[in-house]
């Protein structure tokens, strides 16, 4: 199991476009990946579901925790956290 806690700096948080890029990236991995919005204290939800991601309402400066379990867990966490750190290339 690999986990990482990360703060979102994108000015709109994980709104539709970043959320869809995030989910698409998550879907390319075999691992089970969950996301929890620590700032809102939400339960971990499926990071491969766009609806779950939008419902966790991640806004700017929110801290989230990503947890991945599976063969490519390391790579998954690395790719997804980079996507957030690089602000989805906006």
């Amino acid at each position: 199991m690999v986990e990482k806690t990360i703060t979102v700096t994108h000015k709109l948080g994980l709104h539709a476009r970043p959320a869809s890029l995030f989910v698409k990236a998550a879907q390319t991995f075999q691992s089970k990946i969950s996301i929890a919005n620590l700032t809102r204290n939400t339960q971990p939800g499926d990071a491969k579901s766009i609806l779950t991601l939008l419902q966790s309402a991640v806004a700017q400066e929110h801290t989230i925790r990503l947890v991945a379990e599976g063969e490519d867990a390391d790579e998954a966490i690395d790719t997804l956290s980079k996507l957030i750190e690089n602000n989805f290339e906006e």
Partner: protein
Amino acid sequence: MEIIKGIPANGGIAIGPAFVYEATSFTITRQTVSDIPHELTRFKAAIDGVDDDLMALKTKTARDIGAGEAEIFEVHRMFLADPSFKDAIEAKISKEQLNAEAAVDAISKSLGQQFQALDDDYFRARANDVHDVSRKLLYRLLNISNNGLTGLSQAAIIIANDLTPSDTVTFPRDGLLALCTEIGSATSHTVILARSLNIPAIVGLGAITIKNDDMLIVDGAAGKLIINPDSATIEQYQKEQQRQAVKQQEALSQAAKPATTVDGHQVEVVANIGSLADAQQAIGLGAEGVGLLRTEFLFLEQATLPSEDEQYNLYRAIADVFQQLPLIIRTLDVGGDKALPSIKLAPEQNPFLGQRAIRLCLANPTLFQPQLRAILRASVDRNVKIMLPFISSLKEWQQAKTALEQAQASLTADQLPFNPDIEVGMMIELPSAAVLADLFAPQVDFFSIGSNDLTQYTLAVDRTNERVAHLADPLQPAVIRLIRQVIEAAHQHGKRVGLCGEMAGNPLAIPLLLGLGLDEFSMAAPAIPQAKAQLRKLSRSDSQHLAQHCLTLPTLEAVQGYLKDNL
């Protein structure tokens, strides 16, 4: 006369009759079904049908309005496949022996409520997206067509409770004077679409009682909706509307004139664009062509690579806007720090120095060849040119040219037409390319200086790093000397030089670039009227003296100071 205040969503004034838009109404009956597999098949067929519709809407929106506005339909497609939507509905059908309509309705309502419970305006508004997708599924399942706007026979101000993205996209574009909604926030799709259509909009007006053909005034900037105004008010707003139109007209009539200096030297002023909507806007603002068409957005927003035909259709549509005016299409510039959903890129330690742009394309012919073919096909009878980004050595240039020859040969083999004499140029954005400009010049048809990257790479400054970004100024002496070197090398070989960074539209830099001999200024379209007006007031020979002096100055501050003093 009644005045209602809402949230200003897009400025401008509209005066005209109301058209009350109501989504087609329907009722859902709850039924118990005995044949569950049959019900699941019906549901699956509806999902597939709606997915096709959304795909078509996305393509139409990207073409007519813009790629950014089209993104929402990709998100809607993802809803259709989402476990908390699709799987939940299927489970409801199976476990409760429920008909598909009732199952869709139930899940849609519960998801919508979950969104509406959020305390964040933006995310709360996504309930509307869930309902939009669900409504499409229900229309399919119930076999009804959505025809809420068929009654629209004259240009009108649309009044609605709320508009979904698909509503606003399927509306006829020329019949809309303004959009007004009872609910909705400044982040709703109504707003985004009103902006791209450039019509006034007000949202969040609260419950309003308006009949079809009631006379309305929409003051978008003030968020004011006036119902059945008296004649004095109409007159007042008509005057204001005319005043705004005249102001805009003045700027536009100037914008169409060429940028000829007081001593009779004409330079080209063209636009940097990224979509068909940008293209249409650019023409209206006096662009004399396109100095840079970015093709990245087509690739960054979808999970699969855009097909050659998809690319061709878009390039061709843009080329049709410009007819015989030059359209420079830059091949894909992604990689390193820009993720491509359709191709898995290896993480890089130093993405700006990594497998970016032409390097990525040369390493991935499946990415590069369809794009080259699409651009070549779009060049028939149009003034389309190809620009290769991020060239750092002659070897790379030759490899890229070889790839282009391959694309031409394959088109010939497929008997598809293209312009065999298409001009091929390169970006000068790396110091190595600028230094070797005299060797590149005989081989290229044109240069285009990417001043943002040239500055970043010359000064070793990451312009996205706020601690050092202030050092990344294209007026740095090292950068202007490189620009001089590139222009001189090109002119010695009779080649033209453009510049497509932010510098080209910067009033401080324009006299310097004119003096250095730049042939083509390429900038964001809204900057064009002002840049042309400035160029028309300048003298080339004075600017040459100014440039000569700038080249002797030792620091950025000295260059900036001198240019400010001479503005």
